[in-house]
C-alpha cells in the first residue's frame, strides 16, 4: 500500500542549525527507504507565509494569501512511501525526525487507476 506521511509542527520551533540537521536526518531516512524499495517521494515545504489558497466557486476563482487553515501546527513536509501494512507505515513514521518535535499523520493513498505514471 502507498501511504502519505504528513509532517505537522510549529513553524519556527527549530532554529537554522536544527533545521539543517532535520533535513540531513530526513535524507538518511529517505536513502534507507529507497534501499528497501519503499521510497516514492519526499520534500520539506516552505513556511505557510508563502502559502496561497485557491477556491473556484460558480466559475469564479478566489485566490487568498495563506494556508487552508490557520493553526498553530502547520504542514511542513511530506513523505510518500510504500509499506506492507499500517504497522510498517507507523515504523517509518517513527523514524521521521519531525515525529520527534511535531506530529506525523499517516494517510493511506487511494490507488486511482488510469493516472499518468511518471
Amino acid at each position, binding site marked *: *500500500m502507498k*501511504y502519505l506521511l504528513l509532517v505537522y509542527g510549529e513553524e519556527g520551533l527549530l532554529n537554522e542549525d536544527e533545521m539543517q540537521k532535520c533535513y540531513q536526518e530526513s535524507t538518511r531516512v529517505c536513502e534507507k527507504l529507497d534501499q528497501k524499495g519503499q521510497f516514492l517521494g519526499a520534500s520539506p515545504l516552505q513556511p505557510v507565509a508563502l502559502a496561497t489558497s485557491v477556491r473556484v466557486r460558480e466559475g469564479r476563482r478566489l485566490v487568498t494569501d495563506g494556508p487552508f487553515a490557520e493553526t498553530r501546527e502547520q504542514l511542513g513536509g511530506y513523505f510518500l512511501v510504500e*509499506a*506492507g*501494512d*499500517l*504497522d510498517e*507505515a*507507523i515504523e517509518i513514521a517513527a523514524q521521521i525526525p519531525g515525529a520527534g518535535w511535531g506530529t506525523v499523520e*499517516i494517510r*493511506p493513498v487511494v*490507488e486511482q*487507476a488510469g493516472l499518468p505514471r511518471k
Partner: protein
Amino acid sequence: MLEEIYAREYRRVFATLVRLLGDFDLAEEATQEAFAIAADRWRAEGLPSNPRAWLVSTGRFKAIDSIRRRARFDQQLQKIAEQLEQHPEEDYDVVDDRLRLIFTCCHPAIAPSIQVPLTLREVCGLRTEEIAAAFLTTPTTMAQRIVRGKAKIRGAGIAYKVPEQEELPARLDSVLSVIYLVYNEGYSSLARTDLSLEAIRLARLLVELLPDPEALGLLALMLLQESRREARTDAGGDLILLDDQDRSLWKADLIAEGLALVGAALASPSVGAYALQASISAEHARAVHPQDTDWDRIVALYDLLLRADPSPIVQLNRAVAVAMRDGPAIALPLVEALLQPLSDYHLVHAVQADFYRRLGQPVQAESAYRKALLLARQEPEKRFLEKRLSELSISDRAVRQLGGGEEE
C-alpha cells in the same frame, strides 16, 4: 452434532478466513456459505476427518468464486484473488487466528471506544444488539461504530497479525483489557459461560505467546473467579455472596492453576493491576471458611492496587474490605466519598445500603437499595437487591408494629 461444530468452530473458521481474505465482510459471507454447504454434505456423507480444515478450504473456494465474479469491477478484489491463488494451501492450525484478530481489533490506530465492541463482534461473535445492550447504547449506534472500525482496518491497511516481539508489550495492554471485558460480560450476564471460557482460552494463548506478568495475572484472575461460578448462584439463579457460598463447590483444579499463576506473576520484578487483583482473589480462594479470610492482607493488597490503578471502583472494593476488617461504621465514610464519582454505578449504592443494614439503619438502607435497584441491569442482581429490600421492610414493619403496640 453440526450445532456443536458450529458453536465451536464458527469464529475460528471466520478468523482464519479473515486472515486469508483480508476482508471482514468477504470472510463472513464465505464462512456462512461453508457452513451451509457442510450442513448438506455432512448429513449425507458423514463428517470429514478435519472439519475445521474442510470448512476453511470450502470457504476459501467460495470466496475465490465470488471474488472472480466481482473482480471485473474492483481492482482491490483482483489483488486478493491473485494472492489467494499464489498461496493455495497452508497449515490452518499453526497460530490461532483469533489471537491475530484480537490484535487487529485492538490496534492503537482504532479508537478505544471501538476496540472492545469490534472484538466482541468479530472475535467472539456477539450480536450487535447484545453489544449495544452491554454498552447501554442503541444497536444503530453500535453498528455504526463497528462499521467504522472495520472500514479503518481495511482502509488504513491494519494487518491481521500478532505484533513483532518488540512491539508486543506496548500492544498488550489494550488486548488484556478487552479480554477481561469479554470475561466479565460472560460472568455478569450468567447465561454466557461460553464468553468467559472464550476469554480464558484467549488469555491462555496469550500467555503461551508472551509470558508477561500481567497476562499471567489476568489469566489467574479469571480462573479464580471462574472457580466460584457454580457456588455463586442457587438453583433458582439467585446470587449468593462470597461469605454465604458453599466453598466445597469451588473448583479445586481452577484454584490450583490460578494460585500457581499468581505466584509466577508476583515473582516478577514489576507487579501490575491484574496480578494484584488476582492476589486478592487468591486470598479468598485460600480461606477454607469465610472467617479464615485474611482481611488485613486484602486491604494491604488494595492499597497496592490503588497505586497501580487509582480508580473509584478500586476504592469502593477497598471500602468493602475495610468494612470486613474494621466494621461498616469505619467504612461508611469511605463509600460516601464515592457516591459522587460513581453516582451511576449500582454497586456504590448497594454497598452503602449494605453498610446501613449492618449498622441497623433500615430507613437509610432502604433508600440506598432503591437507588441501586434503579441502576442495576442484570436480573440476578435485581432479584438480590429486591430480596434485601423485602427483608428490610419485613423487619421494619416488625419494628413499627412493636412501636404501635406501645402506643395503644
